[in-house]
């Protein structure tokens, strides 16, 4: 009995000391680095707008504290991304880092944050090394593991009974992750697996090969400007009539629909979110986004918004004591916020376990082209690398 009282006293004293050492901050600084120029700028702009919208809707606050979001453009260059990360972490002393679209830029930049125990909240890229062996306590993924959309697309191709699929992806980490993911759940034959240069804009040679191979499905992972150019050239070559195209969710989202137009109608894709999701958080988000920016949000916008909500919830749960990184991590893992995608939870490697859906590009009641949800492909789906992660 005595020892129990003593123990409680000691614990209380320790708690008091730790409260003293971790004063509540009076403001939150967030470094936001993204691709905001060049052919893939639309992705970074959507993430930024989604993120800023969440901050704005909370009255310029994150977790109840006035927030300062430092926005930087990585210009689609890993070295620029890394420089910005170094500036944000070492000079600006940000509390959180977020924003990056592309895996190669993220792989180059986030070690800067990890070294200084600054949490990076990914609103998009989640390369497979970070899901497995190199999983990191300071990385939280608010979107989905790199392979997941592609695994869902592979499952969709299997469900459809495609027997001979042709695969194209850019030659970089996420490109390799994508085709690996697709093949993990696709049971048919792979006609060819083609890797193009990252940032390539002319696909005449690849399209001619596709025409000659006569596959019964074509799967492409070409984010941003690459996908816009590919689909436009695919249509111009007259291939859209012969070969069904399957894409991951962002491969036929608003940033691609806007420039390509009606040729997108009827295209199937897979994603963890769609603007028509019927939950309170999503209805509020979609309405506010359309009002603020006069356009329909893409998955990127939804991911940016969720990333901000995740940080917001964690800061709120630790009562603003962001200096205590361990407490912030714990609060983040709990993810106590209403995500626009519906319920999800974090895996051991701090990547989401969630549902993935089949979507199709159709017209909404105003005649606009938009992705509509037509089915669930995976329920509570994690990733294939988590066993290799030694983090508890």
């Amino acid at each position, binding site marked *: 009995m005595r020892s129990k009282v003593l123990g409680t006293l000691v614990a209380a004293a320790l708690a008091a000391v730790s409260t003293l050492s971790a004063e509540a901050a009076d403001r939150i600084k967030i470094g936001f680095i993204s691709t905001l120029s060049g052919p893939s700028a639309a992705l970074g702009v959507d993430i930024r707008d989604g993120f800023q919208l969440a901050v704005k809707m909370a009255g310029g606050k994150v977790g109840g504290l006035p927030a300062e979001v430092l926005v930087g453009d990585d210009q689609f260059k890993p070295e620029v991304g890394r420089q910005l990360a170094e500036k944000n972490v070492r000079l600006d002393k940000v509390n959180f880092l977020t924003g990056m679209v592309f895996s190669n830029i993220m792989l180059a930049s986030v070690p800067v944050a990890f070294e200084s125990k600054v949490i990076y909240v990914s609103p998009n890229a989640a390369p497979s090394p970070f899901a497995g062996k190199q999983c990191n306590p300071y990385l939280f993924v608010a979107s989905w593991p790199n392979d997941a959309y592609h695994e869902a697309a592979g499952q969709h191709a299997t469900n459809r009974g495609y027997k001979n699929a042709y695969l194209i992806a850019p030659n970089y980490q996420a490109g390799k992750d994508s085709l690996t993911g697709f093949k993990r759940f696709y049971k048919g034959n792979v006609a060819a697996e*083609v*890797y193009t240069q990252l940032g390539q804009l*002319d696909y*005449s*040679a690849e399209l*001619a*090969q596709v025409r000659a191979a006569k596959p019964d499905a074509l799967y492409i992972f070409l984010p941003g*400007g690459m996908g816009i150019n590919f689909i436009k*050239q695919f249509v111009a070559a007259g291939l859209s009539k012969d070969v069904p195209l399957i894409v991951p969710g962002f491969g036929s989202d608003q940033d691609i629909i806007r*420039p390509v137009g009606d040729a997108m109608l009827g295209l199937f894709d897979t994603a963890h979110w769609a603007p028509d999701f019927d939950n309170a958080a999503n209805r509020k988000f979609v309405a506010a986004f359309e009002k603020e920016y006069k356009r329909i949000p893409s998955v990127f916008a939804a991911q940016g918004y969720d990333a901000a909500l995740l940080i917001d919830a964690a800061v709120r749960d630790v009562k603003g004591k962001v200096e205590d990184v361990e407490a912030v991590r714990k609060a983040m893992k709990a993810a106590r916020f209403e995500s626009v995608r519906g319920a999800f939870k974090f895996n051991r490697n701090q990547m989401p376990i969630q549902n993935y859906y089949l979507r199709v590009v159709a017209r909404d009641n105003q005649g606009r082209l938009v992705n509509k949800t037509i089915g669930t492909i995976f329920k509570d789906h994690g990733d294939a690398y988590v066993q290799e992660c030694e983090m508890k």
Partner: protein
Amino acid sequence: MSWILILEQSLNGLQFGLMLFLLAAGLTLVFGIMDMINLAHGSLYMLGAFLASTFVQLTGSFLAGVLLAIPATAVLGMLLEVSILRTLYTRDHLSQVLATFALILIINELVRLVWGSDAALPMPAALSGPVELLPGLRYPAYRLVIIGVGLAVALVLYLLVAKTRVGMLVRAGASNREMALAMGVDIKLLFTLVFGAGAALCAVAGSMLAPLLAVQVGMGENILILAFVVIVIGGIGSIRGALVGAVLVGVVDTIGRAFLPILLGAFFQPRVASAAGPALASVMIYLIMAVVLYFRPQGLFPARG
């Protein structure tokens, strides 16, 4: 591997090669006649595309927009020559490289200030579909137009250089600058004209390629490297060399991208082939350049005897 596929890939290679030729033609003349390395040549290509985008939006017609962009870029090119580049002719190549590299950065930022980081230049709707060339071969109409424009410009350029008095002066300048000077050629005016013509060719390439690719800051830098490869292969100062070199680079690059992975697949495991194919394809043109340099250091068609 059917012959239709080979034909289609050859057309793709020809299309790419002809656009490279438009860039390389101006570059090779400037390099050959003025002995000037102009890295900012790619910036003129970019300016051409941005100007075309603006003019197409203003006039509402693709053709009118492109036709306005060409003289506008030529004028900008001549202004650049008169104001800045002229003072660099007597300097060594290192100074020229440094100064024109600085120009790339300056022009990039100026374009960013005026237009933003990118602009839209949509394909004319009438040309956005395919054309059936042969049974089983449907080819994008717009790429055919590009091939047509490229061939027409090449022909006009050939007639200009081979059959006219100005062309004769250009050839004289390229083969022996000092002698041309000694014979009383107004070399200053000639230089400005050649520079303007090079800029106009850049604008043709930039505005024709823009609907296929993208109008963005920095679009000239990657293609400039290829243009230099072309003139090194073709021989500096030679229009004929630029044409042959450009088509060679275009076809080799396209064929390499299309067939190398298949070819490697016959010898290696698919995993190795799909990884090595694209890597090898992207160095093919540099391998060709190295081979040409080894056997014919002056290029395939040297302008100087």
